[in-house]
């Protein structure tokens, strides 16, 4: 029984530490929390060394479903600025985390809470709200950051929020924004030129996350392995997709890290289409740390696939 008593004492000590906790933290930098890595990467470009950035969802994690961990709440509790997409992408997990953090600075509606979709004209806003259409997003398709012009807008929103939270350095943030926009504005025509030969070409995706990218670069990404958003592929639907792919000679399937690769591989094997790794988030593909690097990689790999995949006709 002696051992039991010592265990009991140990447990009591643990409980004691638990209650008093240890919070060591430096307040020197502006604490910025981003829900996803795309906002995180842009905030890093704008904030540079002046901000400490934490990203909640891993770049390889489905942003619709994020598992909460205690550190998420403590990060939010310390945050000066919270950046989210806001078009219902994070709606399943972010609100209770904000509640739990009890940080009034990042409450919804406060200047410290940036919703990047606010003020953007989103695509695919449903005319009727009907669950039979799959995962419903009443505000429109939330994957808007795949269009560089939307990223441009988000960068401006983020800069404004950082400047408001840290007025001393707002001129520096403005400077960094100007540099970011300059790089982006320089790259955009290059990307468009690369995509020029493939205007109107159709590409298959697993989930409907790419309408903004498709719009900007003139391709059609409107055939999905999921029968409806959020619903896993069914045999009949896949057969239909493969028939369309064969009749229209569609040669490219894009797949994101958290999607079911096996399904895409099976379709690729049966149709001869090439499988291209895509990601909406910097870090979701190796070697893409910044937003611009990410779009650069996406455009390059899509162009390569369309070139090689498009030539062989059955």
């Amino acid at each position: 029984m002696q051992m039991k008593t010592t265990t009991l004492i140990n447990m009591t000590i643990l409980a004691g530490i638990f209650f008093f906790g240890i919070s060591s933290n430096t307040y020197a930098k502006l604490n910025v929390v981003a829900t996803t890595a795309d906002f995180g990467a842009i905030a890093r470009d704008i904030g540079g060394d002046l901000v400490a950035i934490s990203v909640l969802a891993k770049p390889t994690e489905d942003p619709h479903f994020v598992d909460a961990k205690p550190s998420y709440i403590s990060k939010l509790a310390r945050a000066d600025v919270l950046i989210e997409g806001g078009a219902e992408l994070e709606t399943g997990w972010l609100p209770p985390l904000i509640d739990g953090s009890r940080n009034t600075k990042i409450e919804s509606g406060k200047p410290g809470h940036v919703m990047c979709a606010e003020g953007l004209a989103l695509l695919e806003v449903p005319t009727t709200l009907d669950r039979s259409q799959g995962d419903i997003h009443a505000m429109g398709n939330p994957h808007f950051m795949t269009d560089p012009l939307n990223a441009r807008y988000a960068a401006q929103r983020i800069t404004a929020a950082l400047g408001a939270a840290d007025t001393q350095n707002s001129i520096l943030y403005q400077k960094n924004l100007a540099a970011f926009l300059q790089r982006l504005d320089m790259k955009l025509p290059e990307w468009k030129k690369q995509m020029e030969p493939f205007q109107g070409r159709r590409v298959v995706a697993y989930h409907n996350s790419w309408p903004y990218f498709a719009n900007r670069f003139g391709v059609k990404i409107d055939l999905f392995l999921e029968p409806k958003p959020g619903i896993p592929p069914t045999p009949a639907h896949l057969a239909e997709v493969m028939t369309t792919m064969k009749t229209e000679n569609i040669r490219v399937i894009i797949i994101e890290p958290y999607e079911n690769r096996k399904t895409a591989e099976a379709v690729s094997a049966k149709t001869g289409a090439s499988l291209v790794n895509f990601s909406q988030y910097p870090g979701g593909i190796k070697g893409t740390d910044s937003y611009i690097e990410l779009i650069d990689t996406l455009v390059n790999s899509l162009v390569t696939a369309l070139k090689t995949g498009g030539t062989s006709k059955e």
Partner: protein
Amino acid sequence: MSEAFQIMMWPLLACLLLPGLLVYLGLHIVRREIIFVDLALAQVAALGICMAILLGHDAHDWQTTAWSGGFTFVGAALLTLTRPSGKRVPQEALIGIVYVVAAAASFLLLSRSPEGNEELRRTLVGEILLVQPGEVLRTFAMFTAIGIVHLIFRRKFWLLSFAPEQGKSEGIRLWLWDFLFYVLFGIAVTSFVRMGGVLLVFSYLIIPAVCANIFATTMRARLAVGWIVATLASVAGLYASYRLDLPTGAAIVCALGLALLLTSSVRIFHNSK
């Protein structure tokens, strides 16, 4: 108030207030050797949730609760009917079948409903870290009510699980009390499952009860041991979850597992002296 306490206060309260009843019910479950009955009932309730969502109700609508409650009722009736009369078909087999069929049926339903997918996942994993104060207090009130029913009729419930033959000879209608037991059990399990998930509810039911059986023989002593184990493991699990940034529910489950390991080694050590 420190940050740790601020973040973990409601999960901590949930894990201190609610397992009390679960540990007690667990003693019955372990004694009756129907260990997986909680999984089966939780799955049947989840099937009800899927059904409600498919019919267009929101996960938090009262209709959803009604569907889930109705399914739990049917599940309880099924389990009452399967109380073993002979040894030919063990009840555990039937419980397993209820679980598997309910799980498969949920998959069929949610293949038509994207929202169901998220909901079912939540049912399995739970979100003890993000419990809302209202939810904890409501569930605690419900648990208290169930606890009072069990307290009033404690002798009947005791006979039911620990000495059914004696109960029969005293003229107690076993099936009626059995049904009541399963209904109350189902309500308790499904309301906790919505907070903590299936893994956590299973652990709170079974592990403290097993620890208690290792150490004590009387009901009172077993309850005391079970409650101590549940409380210490909850605090340790929550603490580990906070300090090491681990998923909270899983951390508590592992802490309970560790508690069993500790108590059984204490027992062995004690015996060998």
